[in-house]
């Protein structure tokens, strides 16, 4: 059972904004879904995984990088080749 406060906490942990009017419906939906997920509690097994592919690696070879212009092309703000981001304290 999660409460609206729990949902707010999850949104904070996920750093995702939710609208106030969404909080109630989200909480109800969460609870329905999490209740459905409870079936997993009954799962038994050692979880041993058959892994076939392993050691997928590449040689240490240099390949061309993107031109700076391509890197900056989709960014909203750039300054002297740097990409501008909101300030971190």
């Amino acid at each position: 059972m999660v409460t609206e406060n729990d949902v707010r906490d999850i949104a904070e942990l996920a750093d995702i904004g939710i609208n106030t009017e969404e909080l109630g419906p989200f909480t109800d939906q969460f609870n329905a879904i999490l209740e459905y997920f409870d079936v997993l509690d009954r799962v038994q097994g050692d979880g041993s995984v058959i892994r076939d592919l392993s050691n997928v690696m590449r040689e240490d070879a240099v390949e061309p990088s993107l031109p700076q212009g391509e890197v900056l092309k989709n960014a909203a703000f750039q300054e002297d080749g740097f990409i501008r981001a909101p300030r971190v304290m």
Partner: protein
Amino acid sequence: MAAHETGFNPDDRYNAFLTVCRKAPHGDGKLAGIAIAVKDNISTQGIETTCASKILKGYIPPYDAHVVDLLKQSGAAIAGKTNMDEFGMGTTTENSAFGPTLNPCDTTRVPGGSSGGSAAAIAAGMVRMALGTDTGGSIRCPAAFCGIVGLKPTYGRVSRYGLIAYANSLEQIGPMAGNVSDVSLLMQVIAGYDRRDSTSYNRPYTHTPNPDIKGLAIGIPQEYFGAGVDPKVAEVTKRAIFRLEELGATALPCSIPSMEYALAAYYVTCTSEASSNLARFDGVRYGPAADTKKSWHDAYREVRRAGFGAEVRRRIMLGTFALSSGYYGKYYAKAQVARENVKKDFARIFSEVDVIAGPTMPTIAFKLGEKSDPLSMYLADILTVPVNLANIPAISVPCGKVDGMPVGLQIMGKPFEDERVVDVAFAYEQVAA
């Protein structure tokens, strides 16, 4: 390298396309001149790629996905980018930020999802072939609802490099077309090893469909014909399987006990991976700008609130919760154990049979707006998700109608036996014609 140009001016009354390439260059090769639609979560250099989300509006990838490289190398003309559920999250294409796609068979109904745009484009005759992606049924569902053919390849057979990730361990790009031969042709082009995808296998596909299925053993899981499946849909599917028996195959009953928790395992896994994959959309390097006057966390949160639709935000939160400290063991870890059980169930059944058959979807296409509750929407995926959990190939081929709407027959195969799955679908298609 492109020697020619294809003019492309579709009448897109179904909102199948998000971007149309009216003059598409093309070269020579296996697909020379064929107009192919590409789902909008596959990166196309120089062509806007949005995943049907506001958070990627205006994003123009500086590179092509591997499969797009392959399409171009075989001379195809990229006709445009198709509509989808936002980031692949949905079963109806109603979760698109740019309006739903309509089902050409009945425009009051959904085309299925999340590759609804690609399916509708084919069903409406706008293109002959398209690329879709399938994480929990997103190729097969729209194929079934729109009455076309769609193949989800064995995991790792088609490169995911350039596919904007939703759930990395579950998804594959796959071919969609009006018939099995075209699906097979497109698969020839896109399958094969890519060194840029560490989960890619070296298993090219060079097959031409063969309708001979004499002696084939087909497993019929009781869970695919039980409660939750519309009896009319079950009936149409059974009749289709009977046609296969007439061709020399044998149907054997079987059971997949892990179906009980397969859907839960699927949704825990895909939302967990998605919560991580979608965290990069912060408005800094691409997408609508973050407000640099705000502080980092405030700006980031706002970008995501404004840019992601409700379903996407719901799944991100679910996934974050499933991975969070204190809950990881209950949800994510348990889901992986469940997944291994699903794989073991299929392996066990495949030691007795060659393929498994059943309906693709439990119902015909819903009416637009019919499924407003998230959980009931998730339950619609019950017949398709086990295939993704088990990483096996599966195809949906039209097998009849219920209330005037198409029904899809789903053929599931052993890992790397995509060819066999195509053959069974081809065999049915030939006699059903």
